[in-house]
């Protein structure tokens, strides 16, 4: 008997052929660097997967992450698979509002306790009891803690939820914090990026649906399949870097020849993401292809790491002031130390006992 709530059934209903579905599964398998043989397994698992309940909470964010996901070009499988989950709560996308919206969240939390996926975008303000961002009169912090309790896992979507993002940039007036700083007892997967690549979001969800667990993560909690390599390592301009050919300005000959943008501040060498391979906007390209260096948006603190246009090798802060302060501090320490030495000498001089002829008498 066919289960009408399975993914395959829903896809068929929406006119997606099994062939397209298998293509998607193969693409996902390769995207996540799984062995080719796992594609049918993915297909089988996905086909039979029940729609998991997903609660999406948006906190201090710009809705860019949601934009990224929903603007993935229709009719792509990315958007479709998103339909295949039971998105029980999402500010931007839900039709319901007010008490009805909140009720659907509460119902999902109750009905799927311990099973639902919690997706979070945006950072959570913690200063002054978190009053800087509230929904339906409740603070983000309160909502997150409540929703986290019954979640099977939490997916922090975007750099704000994953690492604090722009709200946490100096001087961080709201005390913004990432999910991982606040929730310690649940598996958390960070899908960083400002915004993250849509297929990375769907890829992670597919993995979860297929294997019932989260994919392998790097030390920052990001799926290794997408964040294992740097932009630089996979950049099509890498040969120019190796040859020492750099664009010096955005309109010089080097820039027109497509040379490396390192000297124009490209953060590719220190940024782990899949932009250079999966690309954006249906494979149209990625920032470096558009002639602009990588901003490093999928790395923690990229917003405070100095100018986007300062080369990586250059100091990011005011080195002169720091050196001056260090010299001052060193001088002050030296003065303090030498004062201590002087005091020691002075006390010895004050207690100097005269050597008399008696002391040297044999």
């Amino acid at each position, binding site marked *: 008997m066919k289960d009408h709530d399975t993914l395959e059934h829903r896809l068929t209903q929406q006119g997606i052929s099994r062939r397209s579905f298998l293509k998607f599964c193969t693409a996902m398998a390769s995207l996540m660097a799984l062995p080719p043989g796992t594609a049918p397994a993915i297909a089988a698992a996905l086909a039979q997967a029940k729609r998991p309940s997903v609660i999406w909470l948006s906190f201090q964010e710009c809705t860019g992450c949601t934009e990224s996901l929903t603007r993935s070009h229709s009719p792509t499988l990315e958007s479709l698979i998103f339909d295949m989950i039971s998105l029980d709560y999402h500010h931007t996308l839900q039709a319901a509002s007010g008490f009805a919206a909140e009720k659907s969240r509460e119902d999902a939390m109750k009905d799927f306790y311990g099973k639902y996926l919690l997706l979070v975008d945006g950072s959570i303000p913690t200063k002054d009891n978190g009053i800087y961002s509230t929904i339906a009169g409740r603070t983000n912090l309160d909502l997150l803690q409540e929703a986290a309790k019954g979640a099977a896992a939490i997916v922090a979507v975007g750099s704000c939820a994953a690492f604090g993002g722009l709200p946490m940039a100096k001087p961080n007036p709201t005390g913004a914090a990432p999910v991982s700083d606040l929730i310690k007892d649940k598996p958390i997967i960070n899908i960083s990026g400002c915004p993250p690549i849509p297929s990375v979001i769907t890829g992670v969800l597919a993995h979860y649906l297929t294997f019932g667990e989260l994919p392998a993560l790097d030390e920052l909690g990001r799926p290794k399949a997408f964040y294992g390599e740097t932009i630089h390592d996979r950049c099509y301009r890498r040969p120019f870097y190796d040859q020492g050919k750099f664009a010096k300005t955005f309109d010089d000959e080097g820039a027109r020849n497509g040379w490396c943008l390192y000297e124009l501040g490209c953060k590719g060498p220190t940024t782990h993401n899949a932009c250079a391979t999966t690309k954006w906007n249906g494979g149209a390209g990625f920032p470096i292809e558009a002639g602009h260096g990588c901003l490093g948006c999928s790395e923690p603190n990229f917003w405070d790491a100095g100018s986007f246009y300062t080369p990586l090798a250059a100091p990011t802060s005011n080195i002169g002031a720091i050196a001056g302060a260090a010299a001052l501090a060193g001088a002050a320490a030296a003065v303090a130390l030498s004062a201590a*030495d002087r005091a020691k000498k002075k006390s*010895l*001089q004050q207690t100097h006992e*005269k*050597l*008399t*002829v008696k*002391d*040297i008498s044999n």
Partner: protein
Amino acid sequence: MTTSLQGGINRMMEQIDGPIATFFSSCVHCGLCADACLFYTETQNPKYTPIHKLEPMRRLWQQEFTFWGKLMSRLGLSKPVTDAELAAWEPLVYDSCTMCGRCSLACPVGNDIVYMVRKMREGMVVSGHAPDDIKGATQRAIELGGPMGITFATLQAHIKHAEKETGLTIPVDQIGADYMMVLSSAEIADFSEIIPAVTRIFDHAKVSWTFASDGFEGTNSGMQLGSSDLAAELVGRLVKAAERLKVKYVISPECGHAYTALRWEGPNLIGRPYPFKVVHIIELLDELRAAGRLRTEGMDDTRLTFHDPCQMVRRGGVVEQPRKLLKQVASNFVEMPNPGVQNWCCGGGGGVSAIERAEPLRQVAFKRKKSQLDAINVNTIVTSCSNCRNVLQDGLEHYHMPQQVVGLTELIAEHLAEKK
């Protein structure tokens, strides 16, 4: 006070000043000072490397006055200075260092090593690790008036004898004289011919001068011992006498360390400037010569050389004066190798000649002087330091060498032009 390890360590720390801290932190461990030291060159024993002689004081500086040193000693990772170590260092700091200052001159980063040896001896004597012979000499100097136990009565006898010999009156305690003459014990005891010599020269040049009954001995074994307290007492006697007699100048005798003690260390030891000037007898003679007041006749045609006393050339800068004087009376003057500021020490300065147990080492070190003399084949060695003169005579005798040693002042006196 009693001598003790802690007392010595405290005294050494008291001595560690800006220059010493700078020197120790500047040392690049190149070892060039070793080749500048005759105790190293003649023995080839690395323990005689000058900077190594300061090792206990260097560690003390490091442990007490440097950040990392303090940290290390707090953590118990540094080796403290022990009594046994200071005892082991006594022969290095005293017996094998004449404070000739040649190492200070050789140091490529400008470390005044001899300055540090002088300061380290301050701690050594308070720790109880100074040679008995120098302690005895200092005791005699303080209690009797001179390191050899010479009293003013001894000098008086020589004065009488000199007056008879020259037919001149030797002024004693003459208030208002221009110059106060000071002698070294070695001169009074061994080379008393200096007394008639200066008497005749001063009469010839019409110099207003006097001896002082309470300040006639200029050597300063307190300084050699390394006790500023005692050195100040000794130099204070001369200052008191000079002030009592209201002289304008005090003449340092032909004695290297007397010159250093009186001219350079004295005001620092007593803590105030002198109301008079200090000149070395050779400096004075050269001034008189330049002023035309020192007329000589006849030339000595003996093949002779001049031995520069370390304290005169390296510490005092008196290099040209003795040569100008010599050339006025000697026709066959030759320089030995490395003359002037680079001259090698006789091996007995800085108190070394007073240490009996150091005698064998001193004779080994004298091979350096011997090689200098062997290179020029002279009959006579002229010098202007009575201690050098004693040590040279000892060494020449030890190595069966035929040269004579004479004092420059006496040589000049012998050639004074007859009065007209």
